[in-house]
């Protein structure tokens, strides 16, 4: 097989995989935007918070240990037990639901009917708050994240040997795909199918879209904003946890995890803020686009590190032709 | 009907000029929906031209065509004797066509005064640099235009709410502010889309008076969409009736009222007793 072609295909395939990982983050944004017109700046921090909570619970860390020690002169750090991954995930989901409730109860309930930019700002406040709380709760040092069904049966990472072997035998070039990416793709597919079903075929899904259009009118027909918001923020919290696990497994859990949100924004823009399948398709396009560009043009001719801006430029280009993104709801312009 | 180019005098002594705007065979489609089907009609200078018809007939769409917001698939708009080339809405506005909107389209974040002043924007020409400096040209222009705006505010009796943010106003007053904004442009043609919806009789009377006065004093040509038949019949010189995108009647209020097609499609029978004077 032609080498250059093989490399290009490999880059392409890995771009797809990276795209899936971006899409995982983008999904959380979409959910909340779709259900309330809120652009949730805190999505990245939620992923961080979820991942930190998961690790903290797994390791039996005492929440707020540092603060407690400083205030009461104690010296507590750990409970001295470890929690099975599965249980820890369930507990973390519970924490995220509580968080969703709190967000609704203390923030958005008081901001019904405000303009989108104000709601956006509130999520920024939330992001600050959560980041601070996460650090106070679990400490800001780096934590390794392992999710294991049983000892030894953890999230797989590293090159998929089977794939490499087979492609090598068949094509003369062993392709590289990361096992973690494969798992992420499967999870993402399940998530997307589930969420699409939810949004399209349930009455809550329809109510969600109604809320996004007009808070007041939704209230007037008896849609409980409170309920919808708790529901959606919980879902977004769950998605954040999944994204946090996938990304955290790679890089460890620490502050930078919250910056993955920046990788999700072009995806969001390209797929459309309101479309769940859009997040996936957008992710794939962005993933492939930026990787191929870096591989074919960026690294050889522009000195590399072009991915960040190229993803945005690519999305911008699409938007000029479709201002609502590929699958976004058409922006209604009428007088 | 009189000849297009000719002026004539109405029974109550107003002079109606020649045709200023003519819609020729307009067809407008949105995907599968044909909102306007091959409609032609004209508007004469100085007249009050009403457009009526059931809901969804295409009246608002017609106004949107006139103001350049919708581009019809077929047909031509003639303005002041010449075919109007394709234009952006703001260019249409700069030609002296102002309008109000069915779903109030005020600038909610601004005060009433500022809203009215936006109506003057087509008349304000100083450059950015002198605006930055303010003293001098920009200030002079601002004051001159402010005077016009204040006149309109006086005229429409909204002095008291001059500095109120429009978002806080009740529906009826918003309509009035919208009219003020349109008037501030000192347009030669004024398009009104249901200016009296959501008003009670007394307020409608006021509004009618304003419309008539504008028409009288400034000779402004008015195209009016309204569902209150009393108002339409009393104010307008000629009426176009639309139904499902088609024109089903055109003529004086009296002619239209007695047109069977119009009665069937729009007026209904029940209405006659109430409207009978």
């Amino acid at each position: 097989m032609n080498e250059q072609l093989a490399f290009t295909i490999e880059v392409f395939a890995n771009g797809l995989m990276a795209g899936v990982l971006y899409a995982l983050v983008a999904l959380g944004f979409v959910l909340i935007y779709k259900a309330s017109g809120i652009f949730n700046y805190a999505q990245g921090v939620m992923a961080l918070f979820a991942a930190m909570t998961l690790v903290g619970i797994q390791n039996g860390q005492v929440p707020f240990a540092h603060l407690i020690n400083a205030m009461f002169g104690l010296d507590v750090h750990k409970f001295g037990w470890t929690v099975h991954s599965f249980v820890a995930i369930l507990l973390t989901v519970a924490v995220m639901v509580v968080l969703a409730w709190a967000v609704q109860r203390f923030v958005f309930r008081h901001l019904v009917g405000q303009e989108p930019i104000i709601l956006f700002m509130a999520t920024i406040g939330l992001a600050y708050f959560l980041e601070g709380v996460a650090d106070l709760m679990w400490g800001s040092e780096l934590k390794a994240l392992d999710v294991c069904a049983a000892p030894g049966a953890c999230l797989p990472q590293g090159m998929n040997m089977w794939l490499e072997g087979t492609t090598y035998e068949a094509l003369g070039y062993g392709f590289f795909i990361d096992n973690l990416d494969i798992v992420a793709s499967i999870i993402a597919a399940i998530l997307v199918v589930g969420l699409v079903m939810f949004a399209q075929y349930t009455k809550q899904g329809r109510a969600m879209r109604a809320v996004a259009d007009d808070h007041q009118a939704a209230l007037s027909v008896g849609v409980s904003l409170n309920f919808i918001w708790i529901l959606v923020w919980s879902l977004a919290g769950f998605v954040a946890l999944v994204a946090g696990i996938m990304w955290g497994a790679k890089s460890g859990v620490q502050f930078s995890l919250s910056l993955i949100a920046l990788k999700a924004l072009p995806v969001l823009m390209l797929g459309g803020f309101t479309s769940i399948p859009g997040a996936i398709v957008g992710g794939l396009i962005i993933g492939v686009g930026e990787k191929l560009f870096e591989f074919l043009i960026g690294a050889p001719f522009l000195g590399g590190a072009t991915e960040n801006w190229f993803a945005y430029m690519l999305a911008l280009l699409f938007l000029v032709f479709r201002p609502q993104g590929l699958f976004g709801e058409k922006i209604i312009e009428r007088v | 009907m009189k000849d297009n180019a000719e002026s004539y005098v109405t029974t109550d002594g107003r002079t109606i000029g020649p045709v200023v705007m003519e819609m020729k065979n307009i067809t407008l489609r949105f995907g599968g929906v044909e909102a306007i089907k091959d409609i032609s009609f004209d508007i004469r200078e100085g007249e009050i031209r009403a457009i009526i018809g059931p809901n969804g007939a295409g009246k608002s769409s017609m106004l949107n065509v006139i103001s350049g917001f919708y581009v019809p698939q077929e047909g031509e708009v003639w303005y002041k004797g010449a075919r109007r080339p394709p234009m952006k809405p703001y260019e249409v506005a700069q030609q002296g066509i102002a309008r109000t909107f069915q779903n109030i389209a005020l600038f909610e974040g601004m005060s009433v005064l500022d809203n009215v002043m936006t109506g003057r924007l087509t008349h304000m020409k100083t450059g950015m640099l002198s605006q930055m400096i303010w003293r001098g040209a920009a200030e002079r222009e601002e004051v001159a235009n402010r005077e016009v705006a204040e006149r309109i505010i006086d005229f429409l009796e909204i002095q008291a709410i001059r500095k109120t943010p429009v978002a806080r106003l009740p529906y009826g007053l918003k309509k009035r502010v919208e009219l003020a904004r349109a008037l501030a442009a000192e347009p030669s043609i004024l398009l009104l889309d249901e200016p009296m919806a959501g008003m009670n009789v007394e307020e409608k009377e006021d509004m009618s008076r304003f419309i008539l006065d504008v028409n009288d004093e400034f000779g402004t040509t008015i195209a009016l969409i309204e569902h209150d038949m009393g108002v339409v019949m009393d104010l307008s010189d000629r009426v176009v009736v639309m139904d499902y995108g088609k024109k089903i009647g055109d003529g004086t209020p009296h002619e239209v009222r007695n047109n069977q097609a119009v009665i069937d499609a729009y007026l209904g029978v029940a209405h006659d007793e109430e409207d009978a004077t």
Partner: protein
Amino acid sequence: DLVFPSMSYRTGPYAAGGIPFADGYADYFTMLNARDGGIGGVMTSVPECETAYNTEKGVECYESLKGGGGLVYQPLSTGITYQLIPKTTVDDIPMHTMGYGRTSAKNGEVFTHTFNYPANYWDGASGAINYLLAENGGDLNGKKISLVYHNSAYGKEPIRTLTDLAAKHGFEFTEVPVDHPGQEQKSQWLQIRRDKPDYVIMYGWGVMNQVAIQEAVNIRFPMENFIGVWWSGSENDVLAAGAGANGYKALTFHGVGKDFPVFADIQTHVVDAGKAAGAGDQIGTVLYNRGLYAAMLAAEAAKTAQEIHGVAQINASQMRDGMAALEITEEKMAALGLPNFGPSFKVSCDNHGGDGMVGVTQWDATAKTWTLISDFAETDKELIDGLIAEDSAAYAAENNITPECK
């Protein structure tokens, strides 16, 4: 009091690196106070200011700490260093940028108040190449070496040195930049997988390190051929990659592990006394040791200054003299309970960078420890000094400085 301000970053994107350093720095002085009653009879204090690795906050910290009479600043960020170079000069306060900052500050005639002993970025680059030379019997001809670097001023530092070294030793050198924060490095590592370099050198920081090592494991790049600079060589960077990271190497200019007498003192005087900084769980980690090492150098410089000026309560200006005359010898380190903890070196008024000795450490993933696998060795002085002279001359010209030994 002798004030040694600590500009730490326990929050933000690089918190994981900032915490142990700040702990080590503080603990050493706490120990000095408890064990020796301070330095030369004067107690020390370490006011801390959080910079979050952010330049503006760094400036705020500097200004606010300045009022407290700080003797020497450790800005711990290249960005802040650049801010403070002119400011500290005007304020007559010395600054120590150990293994980071502006490399050409080694030239003390131009950068009178900035010190970057014992080693700098260019020493790092050269040290890595020297190590590889040694591994390859002195010949790198025809080898391919890639540099994976943080696409910022810091990451770009070694490029010039490596380009020159490539010309000198005949290896092929390619650059692979990674944009901040470096969470996603698929393209870069696919590129490396395709190019198949013999060695990869990394100048990374923060999350970029973890991800790079993980990706290197993923593409099965042999860890023995992967060398990070000292900012890419802490436990944080390798732990996330688990067993795969075994054998990864990193440069260093100080000792690793807890196998030094001084740690016993720290245990008794600091930890057991309940005075440990932070959570107290970082002792013996690479970055903790670096903080401790910085503190030790600062304390020694203060001692030197006390000797020179004959006063116990020195001021910042005197501290500068102490730093400019600092000499670290084997005996001194042994006496301090840190035998062979770092290279011995000597600072002078025209050489603020010491002797630029660099060692190599290797990660053992099962024992979860770093071990020093080479001695602190010389770097290519000739080449580096040329570059330093060039760069500092440019700075002097730009800022109307007449190089002289103050």
